[in-house]
């Protein structure tokens, strides 16, 4: 909130540190008159709306196919590894795959006889279609996972049997019964996807259009500019972006309500089947396309990281070398070390706070039986660029230069919502008879918590830790703004070198960004299995 406040003041030209001591609308005029503003606005709106809408559509279709129509464990097995690939690394690998000189076009070139990269725009296109596609591919698995977390609250099997006994087809029963309940239950994750798609900076910098870029990137460029007066314009842009996110959340809420009303209206007509049912069941197989791309992403990064020479007409590299690993070694170790330290500390801090908060609301000391969900989701709903910029200004006013502390705080802020998603139902559903049994044996609260409850929940805590750790590792803007560009992690290094560096170096950094959380996920899943 302080961060937002400190963004609002400069947005109205009040910025004492830069000698702007009177309120005015000049920053807003500058923003609206900027030659790139309206183009950036249009790109942002189209990217945010299309990527969120298609992510919702695909996630429902895939959920219908593999959870409702033909339940299989296939989804459970592939979702976590797919989600473990960070957005930025995915975007980089997407370029290595699909750019005119990318791997897939090299393979196509073999068949159509291209000898030089074709003159077509496949990435960084001016309509931001490649950015939209990357966002769809990354957000669809996230929404499916969020739907799956709702399964304990919705009796899928019984609902299906009841509706089938009433004569409804599978798809009709899914649309009439499951869809409205799911839509309502995953409302906040949908808003988080929407806010992310409208405001994302690192992915848009990598694969989005450059001239003009999206609004988030444009604001980020003004914040990073050596001309400090542009910060006023950046602040008004950040507030504008916030208002845009709020407007879109309202729009999606209205659309959701209209959708539910329409479904209820249609369901009252008791139509037992819906057109194109088999088409929707088949469309669910789109998950194989996302899975294939996720595998190709890893493969292309591995290939490029050990490539010495790779001509356009060759399907595989001509020669291999570890030279670029050796050359990058020093920077790589520094980035990995910092990322590891920030992730460890911020996740442990987040875990302590979240366990404390969940314990508090589940105790008798409060009448509130749940943490306000919207508050927990707030860091995911607000544009990072809006409140991190303000928080940076805030720290500047108070002459606070403990960058490490600020980075850890900012990382914890983004880690906590994911810890909340992972741990909420686990804590709520914990069988209280175990703690009562411990109290009856004359053990106090802390002994019961540390020797009974937490050890019993350690499997879920390991999983939550791995998730929190991976969220921290991929933070770009929080590290950049709080560290004022002086402290680097693997993510900031990778994003900064994405435009213009050697493919081989970029691939190495992207691969390491994937590997660090992946190792933690593997360790956590082993620990969870042992638990």
């Amino acid at each position, binding site marked *: 909130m302080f961060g937002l406040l400190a963004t609002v003041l400069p947005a109205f030209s009040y910025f004492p540190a830069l000698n702007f001591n009177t309120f005015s609308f000049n920053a807003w005029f500058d923003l609206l008159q900027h030659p790139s503003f309206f183009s950036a606005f249009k790109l942002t709106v189209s990217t945010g709306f299309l990527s969120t809408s298609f992510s919702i559509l695909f996630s429902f279709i895939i959920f219908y196919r593999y959870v409702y129509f033909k339940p299989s464990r296939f989804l459970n097995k592939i979702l976590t590894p797919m989600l473990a690939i960070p957005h930025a690394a995915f975007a980089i690998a997407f370029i290595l795959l699909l750019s005119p000189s990318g791997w897939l076009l090299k393979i196509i070139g073999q068949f159509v006889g291209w000898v030089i990269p074709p003159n077509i725009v496949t990435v960084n296109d001016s309509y931001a279609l490649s950015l939209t596609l990357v966002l769809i591919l990354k957000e669809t698995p996230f929404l499916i996972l969020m739907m799956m977390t709702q399964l304990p609250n919705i*009796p899928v*099997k*019984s*609902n299906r*049997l*009841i509706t*089938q*006994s*009433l*004569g*409804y*087809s599978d798809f009709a029963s899914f649309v*009439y*019964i499951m869809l*409205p*309940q799911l839509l*309502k239950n995953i409302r906040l994750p949908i808003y988080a996807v929407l806010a992310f798609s409208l405001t994302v900076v690192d992915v848009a910098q990598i694969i989005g259009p450059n001239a003009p870029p999206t609004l988030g990137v444009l604001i980020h460029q003004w914040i990073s500019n050596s001309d400090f007066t542009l910060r006023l314009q950046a602040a008004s842009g950040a507030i504008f972006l916030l208002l845009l996110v709020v407007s879109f959340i309202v729009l999606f809420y209205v659309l959701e309500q209209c959708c*539910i009303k329409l479904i*209820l209206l249609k*369901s*009252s*007509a*008791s*139509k*037992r089947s819906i057109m194109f049912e088999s088409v929707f069941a088949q469309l669910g197989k789109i998950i194989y396309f996302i899975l294939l791309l996720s595998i190709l992403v890893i493969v292309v990064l591995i290939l490029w990281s050990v490539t010495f020479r790779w001509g356009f007409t060759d399907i595989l590299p001509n020669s291999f070398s570890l030279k670029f690993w050796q050359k990058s070694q020093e920077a790589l170790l520094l980035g990995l070390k910092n990322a590891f330290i920030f992730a460890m500390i911020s996740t442990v801090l987040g875990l302590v706070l979240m366990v404390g908060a969940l314990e508090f609301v589940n105790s008798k000391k409060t009448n509130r039986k749940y943490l306000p969900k919207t508050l927990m989701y707030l860091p995911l709903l607000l544009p990072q660029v809006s409140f991190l910029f303000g928080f940076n200004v805030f720290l500047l006013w108070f002459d606070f230069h403990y960058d490490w502390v600020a980075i850890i705080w900012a990382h914890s802020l983004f880690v906590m919502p994911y810890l909340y998603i992972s741990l909420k139902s686990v804590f709520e559903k914990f069988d209280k008879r175990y703690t009562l049994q411990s109290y009856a044996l004359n053990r106090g609260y802390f002994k019961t918590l540390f020797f009974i409850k937490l050890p019993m929940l350690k499997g879920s805590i390991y999983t939550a830790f791995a998730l929190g750790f991976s969220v921290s590792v991929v933070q770009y803007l929080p590290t950049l703004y709080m560290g004022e560009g002086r402290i680097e992690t693997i993510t900031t290094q990778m994003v900064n070198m994405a435009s213009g560096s050697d493919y081989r170096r970029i691939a190495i950094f992207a691969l390491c960004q994937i590997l660090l959380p992946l190792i933690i996920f593997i360790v956590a899943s082993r620990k969870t299995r042992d638990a």
Partner: protein
Amino acid sequence: MLEFKEFQLFINEVAIFEPISMTISNEIVSIMGPSGCGKSSLFMAVLGGLNEEFSYQGDIEINGESIMQRSTAQRHIGMMMQDDLLFPHMNVMQNLLFACPEKMKKIEKLDLINRYLIKTDMYEFKDSKVQSLSGGQKSRISALRAVLCQPEIVLLDEPFAKLDQSLKQKFRPWLFDLLLEKNIPVLMVTHDLNDCHQSAFYDLVKGEFSAR
């Protein structure tokens, strides 16, 4: 008419119960047995909701036609389980409209539902959210939903299990009257002797009818 012809269920090729042969005409027949004897599996077999690890011998027919190759949606069965399973995003009226046959006109549906609601003292709750209903009220709506779809048979799986004693005593005769009025076969799975409608029940362990 619901007919079991030497019907036997197997799980991983192990028989769950002895072959059943019985005919249920327009009456309420209770199937009893201890936990794990296969009551719920038999219920699922009639409904068409068995998992892949089950196999069967014999046949089940409704009105002289085998239903084993039909999907659940094609079997025309009304069902009621111990959990009311009313759809939480729909109000009472919407839940009942959802159950009505597709071919009925809207005005006919509303007329039929309103008559049922008045008859069951539930008319004033027609626009209520299902979450706001009491346990007994939910059971009544769930029972209405089972008969509104104009089924050829009705299946009941422990329909009174979640009701307290006094509510059970009120709801049981109410439900039996409602079902008998429809003149269709009703198969009820239960483990409580008091729930049986007739003086005899089918004992799944012994494979024969026993007296209460």
